[in-house]
């Protein structure tokens, strides 16, 4: 995976790239307005971050407490070391219940574990019921954003897709009409489903409950119909107390989409009287991140999507350019933790502008973590050798002020002398779309010295 290449491809369609940028900026602007309504916003971020830090520092205790409480309420708690174990557990629960048709609401964890292909291969019929997720499922592609899975798709394309798959009117791209058609089809899936799979936004250690947020109500439709509910969550979703939800819920939807809260915020404490609740706790690399102090607080993430919306690079390269389940700044950090070699271009897919850090509702120092990953990538010698050598050479030059002066002067005079075609040859990446600055005859230090000398002379004369 090579982010700059994918990004350039995305940008090649300038009109579409602009549309994408503006769609996400619109969401960012809504977020700004929602946040501005809350005078204690920065305090909320501060406190939420503190609670997350506390939880991560006591994760073992809280996980055990959660398991105990959830079990007391009648839920079944499962533990999965990695993605494949998670998938096996889910499959075996489904098999034990003779379930074949499954409705699934949004869960980045199941995306991360590639649950859908796993179950489909095993003969299960799985329907993603979040409209955006369903659209990308029908298109056979991964979501391009964690909160707005289909943000990269135009309504005309949805119209065409639905025309082919659902038989909607050809050429209709009216969101109302298309949403209504989806609703009708999905309603059948809900009614026929044997099991519901959901993600988890928060799991409360103190009470053993789980909280699931949606706008469409699709998670609740799922868990309210078939009696079997499987909730899949990464172990970092734990929070200590129910009252902490107040903080996180106040931040989550405002940060993500600019809503004061999602339309539905469901609190499940134990299974339905006539059903079963299975909660699968998944590690899949999280305990590894926990061990690395520099990257530990990336586990604070509540998956609001704000860092994507605000990221000027994400907006201009699209979620798919990252090649990882979670794109954007936080995705680049998590992908690096998964496989620094395969994803090594991602920490560099940032101008380090820091907008992500300022917007993150749980105060993750995202751009500093990206920088820390760059150090790690260099330390592990993953960064291509020529780049490392170039930096070493530059460092050597800069350590020798006199050589630096000489080199600067020579380069500038060469730069002024050589013909434009040579200066702007194809190796000059800077110069593809940009002029180089006009090269001055004298450096600053030269000018400064000369001036100082002149002054001294004057002083002398006096």
């Amino acid at each position, binding site marked *: 995976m090579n982010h700059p290449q994918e990004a350039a491809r995305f940008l090649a369609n300038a009109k579409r790239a602009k549309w994408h940028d503006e769609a996400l900026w*619109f969401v960012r602007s809504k977020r700004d307005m929602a946040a501005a309504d809350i005078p*204690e916003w920065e305090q909320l971020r501060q406190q939420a971050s503190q609670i997350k830090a506390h939880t991560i520092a006591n994760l*073992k205790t809280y996980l055990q407490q959660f398991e105990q409480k959830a079990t007391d309420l*009648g839920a079944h708690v499962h533990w999965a070391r990695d993605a494949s174990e998670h998938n096996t557990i889910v499959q075996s629960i489904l098999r034990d219940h003779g379930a074949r048709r499954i409705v699934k609401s949004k869960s980045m964890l199941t995306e991360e574990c590639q649950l859908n292909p796993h179950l489909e291969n095993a003969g299960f019929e799985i329907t993603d019921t979040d409209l955006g997720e369903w659209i990308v499922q029908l298109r056979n592609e991964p979501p391009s954003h964690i909160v707005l899975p289909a943000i990269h798709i135009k309504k005309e394309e949805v119209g065409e897709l639905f025309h082919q798959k659902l038989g909607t009117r050809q050429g209709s791209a009216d969101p109302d009409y298309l949403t209504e058609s989806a*609703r009708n089809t999905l309603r059948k899936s809900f009614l026929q489903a044997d099991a519901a799979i959901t993600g988890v936004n928060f799991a409360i250690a103190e009470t053993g*409950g789980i909280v699931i947020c949606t706008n469409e109500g699709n998670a609740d439709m799922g868990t309210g119909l078939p009696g079997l509910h499987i909730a899949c969550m990464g172990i970092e979703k734990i929070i200590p107390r129910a009252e902490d939800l107040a903080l996180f819920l106040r931040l989550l939807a405002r940060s993500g989409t600019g809503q004061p809260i999602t339309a539905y915020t469901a609190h499940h404490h134990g299974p339905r009287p006539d059903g079963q609740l299975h909660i699968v706790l998944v590690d899949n690399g999280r*305990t590894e991140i926990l061990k690395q102090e520099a990257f530990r607080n990336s586990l604070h993430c509540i998956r609001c999507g704000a860092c994507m919306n605000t990221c000027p690079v994400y907006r201009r390269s699209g979620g798919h350019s990252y090649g990882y389940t979670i794109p954007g700044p936080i995705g680049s950090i998590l992908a690096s933790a998964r496989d620094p070699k395969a994803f090594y271009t991602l920490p560099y897919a940032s101008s380090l502008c820091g907008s992500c850090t300022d917007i993150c509702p749980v105060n993750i120092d995202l751009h500093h973590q990206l920088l820390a990953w760059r150090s790690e990538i260099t330390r592990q010698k993953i960064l291509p050798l020529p780049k490392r050598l170039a930096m070493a050479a530059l460092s050597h030059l800069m350590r020798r002020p006199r050589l630096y002066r000489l080199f600067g002067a020579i380069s500038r005079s060469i730069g002024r002398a050589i013909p434009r075609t040579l200066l702007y040859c194809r190796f000059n990446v800077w110069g593809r779309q940009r002029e180089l600055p006009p090269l001055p005859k004298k450096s600053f230090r030269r000018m400064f010295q000369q001036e100082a000398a002149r002054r001294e002379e004057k002083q002398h004369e006096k």
Partner: protein
Amino acid sequence: MKKNSMKSKQSILDSITDFESAAWELPPRATFGITYDDPIAQFSKILKTVGGTAIRVPNTQALLEELATLDFLAPASNIYSAIPEFLPSTVDLAHTDTPQQLHDLDVALVRGELAVAENGAVWVTDELLRHRVVLFIAEHVILIVSVASVLQNLHEAYEQLSFGKPQYGVFISGPSKTADIEQSLVFGAQGPRTLTVFLLDEEPAA
């Protein structure tokens, strides 16, 4: 729990070492929630922005009158009402064995325990609700909340809520909605197309 999962649990827990640090103490309960001079007005305003409707009524009589003006009620044939004095039910949950049977429910009317001014959310539980799916499968949902239980912000709400027993509870803020097609807001994505919240001044008889 299956044997394998047992082993995985141990291995996950073994790879976590809790580290104690004063820097990461659990902060005390937040005490800085925003408050409004007129929480009822704030609640109504926010609910409107998220696509719902809040109607304040002084008493049961006024509530009945307002109900009569809801245009989706007249043609509705399948109604579940938790408060028959307000609206008669045509659907009997006690005799509805599976939630799927509720697929053509037109209207659901239930009581909300509390409401939150800050975000226009109403807290509803399934304590007296055999099939909680009525809240989602109905085309139109009506919630009845006492004016006295409109709170300022979420912090206040969680102070009041308790989660000791097996139960389902949900904050509902507006009807079902999506903006997944080019950020165009559409109501009635999967669940209810409308949400009406009655704020009743006079405490409804339990």
